[in-house]
């Protein structure tokens, strides 16, 4: 019973985090008039999945009435290539920086780190100009490019610090075995960094999936991510607010990040333990 206070604390903390979620879940399962006439905290009298099906396939967003499913697909079309590009580029850059072949390499890394502390809003306008000059504004490629660039500092930091902890003898052995820069990366370093890949993947996935401002700015019409659609749906000024649909839509939009966390769970923890996010 000495652990009772511990469990009590944990339960309270969990409840505080979960309570809004529970309210959302319960609201999404109520029909509309039950919401309008009952208390927000009351449990659904007559649970129904109608709001969920509508949010997924029938709600009208920006003129089309096919629900979130369309934007859901858009989000995946953005996240997957952006994830691949930022991980591939970040891992390679981190590897190159971890070799510390010259003094200025560390300065380059420090310069890159500055990118970590500048919020995207600050560099939004120059980025728009850059992407426009590349002729990619309003295209999927432009948005993927923007995400890759903004994620690069963070992903590079993760990989660089991990690769720095790899014993130097391993690199020497690879060099003696005749493996060059890329072969060493591919055969020796990358397989070692799987837990770090998991960390980068989960965090970048969450970040890119949840992104709103880049999606709103860079995506062309018909390519906008689910977060933008959610904003349109919930922010709609016309007609009555369908809270149950909004709640269901929000949860649908949040589902992939939760799944990614759960699926990569153990690798993720190992990555954290392997020093992936330590300075």
């Amino acid at each position, binding site marked *: 019973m000495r652990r009772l206070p511990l469990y009590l604390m944990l339960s309270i903390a969990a409840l505080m985090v979960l309570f809004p979620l529970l309210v959302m879940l319960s609201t999404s399962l109520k029909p509309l008039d039950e919401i309008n006439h009952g208390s927000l905290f009351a449990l659904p009298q007559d649970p129904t999945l109608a709001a969920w099906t509508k949010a997924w396939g029938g709600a009208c967003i920006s003129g089309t009435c096919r629900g979130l499913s369309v934007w859901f697909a858009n989000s995946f079309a953005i996240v997957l290539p952006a994830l691949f590009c930022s991980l591939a580029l970040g891992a390679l850059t981190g590897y190159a920086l971890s070799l510390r072949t010259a003094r200025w390499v560390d300065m380059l890394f420090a310069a890159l780190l500055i990118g970590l502390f500048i919020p995207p809003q600050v560099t939004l306008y120059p980025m728009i100009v850059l992407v426009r000059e590349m002729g990619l504004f309003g295209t999927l490629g432009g948005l993927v490019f923007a995400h890759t660039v903004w994620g690069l500092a963070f992903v590079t930091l993760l990989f660089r610090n991990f690769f720095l902890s790899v*014993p130097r*003898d*391993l690199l*020497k*052995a*690879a*060099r*003696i*075995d*005749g*493996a060059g820069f890329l*072969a060493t990366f591919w*055969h*020796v370093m990358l*397989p*070692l960094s799987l837990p770090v890949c998991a960390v980068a993947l989960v965090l970048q996935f969450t970040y890119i999936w949840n992104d709103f401002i880049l999606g709103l700015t860079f995506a062309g019409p018909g390519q906008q991510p689910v977060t933008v659609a959610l904003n349109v749906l919930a922010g709609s000024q016309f007609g009555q607010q369908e809270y149950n649909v909004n709640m269901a839509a929000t949860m649908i939009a949040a589902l992939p990040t939760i799944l990614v966390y759960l699926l990569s769970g153990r690798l993720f923890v190992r990555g954290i333990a392997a020093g992936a996010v330590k300075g």
Partner: protein
Amino acid sequence: MQRVHLQGIAKSFGATKVLEQIDLTIEPGEFLVLLGPSGCGKSTLLNIVAGLEQPTGGRIHFGDRDVTDLEPDQRDIAMVFQSYALYPTMSVRRNMGFALKMQGLSTAEIAAKVADVAKLLQIEHLLDRKPAQLSGGQQQRVAIGRALVREPQVFLLDEPLSNLDAKLRADMRVELKRLHERGRRTTLYVTHDQVEAMTFASRIVVMDKGRVQQCDRPEVVYAKPANRFVAGFVGAPTMNFLEGELALLSDGPALRLKENLLPLPGLWASRGLQVGQKVVLGLRPEHIGLAAADDVGTCPGHVVMTEPTGPDLYVRIRLAGQEVTSRMSPGQAPSPGQKVALELDGKAASLFDVADGQRLN
């Protein structure tokens, strides 16, 4: 088999000079051991031979080929690291075949070569394991196997045994020696363990402070150290040093230590040595023994304590105001406090210059 020739090799990291003017030839098929205290630049020299570091001065030749500017994989060498440096994510099989794969050999060729070496080292049953699933000794074998698979011209080893326990180390010593006798590859072996150096070496290179102090056969390095550093570093317990003046008694040379005269029968009177000259006398523990009753030319000592080590007995003796160590057989054991008559073996004694520590005889 290949001759390795180092000519005037120097290396500095920034302002710190790690190696200065190293001239060394490793004969074809020779087993040359680099011995020296920690931080003296052994690994640095090995890395330079391997091509992992660029020297700041000097040239390296393998046979007639100048390899100074070549990458490690173009030099036809293999290296074993103290940390073994096995690729953790690869199976033993892939670890051993990695270099061959990088050379572009076919899968069948690689498999055949790996199988051969695995059989030689008796690690066939480990081929599908990951390094983390192996004991230290097994990892060590795999690391040696990985080097052997390449059939290198020059074999480089950096303290490969120092992470093993005493028993395993002794076993591996024998095995490495056997492997070398089979293959007769030109080998450069770094260690700071002098027993290892003595067992393997066709010649030992003793290094200190980035310089070669002596390079010779193990017996010579032990019996005739070139300077005080080598004398003190090689041999355990260490050599006894007594500083005094050379003197001549009626029956032979001696060393005068303040008012004491220590007779050194058989000390070879070398050119340039003069009576009255200040020298440092170096005597190994086995060259200080108990005198027989009828011996002349003995000196009195006073036993301070005894240290039995099994086959030998080390006796700390106060001699002419200084403590020295003597090696005796356990049967002779004097007891602490006892007065003894000692006989110093002048034939085996070394004399060093007081100022620069160089050998005088």
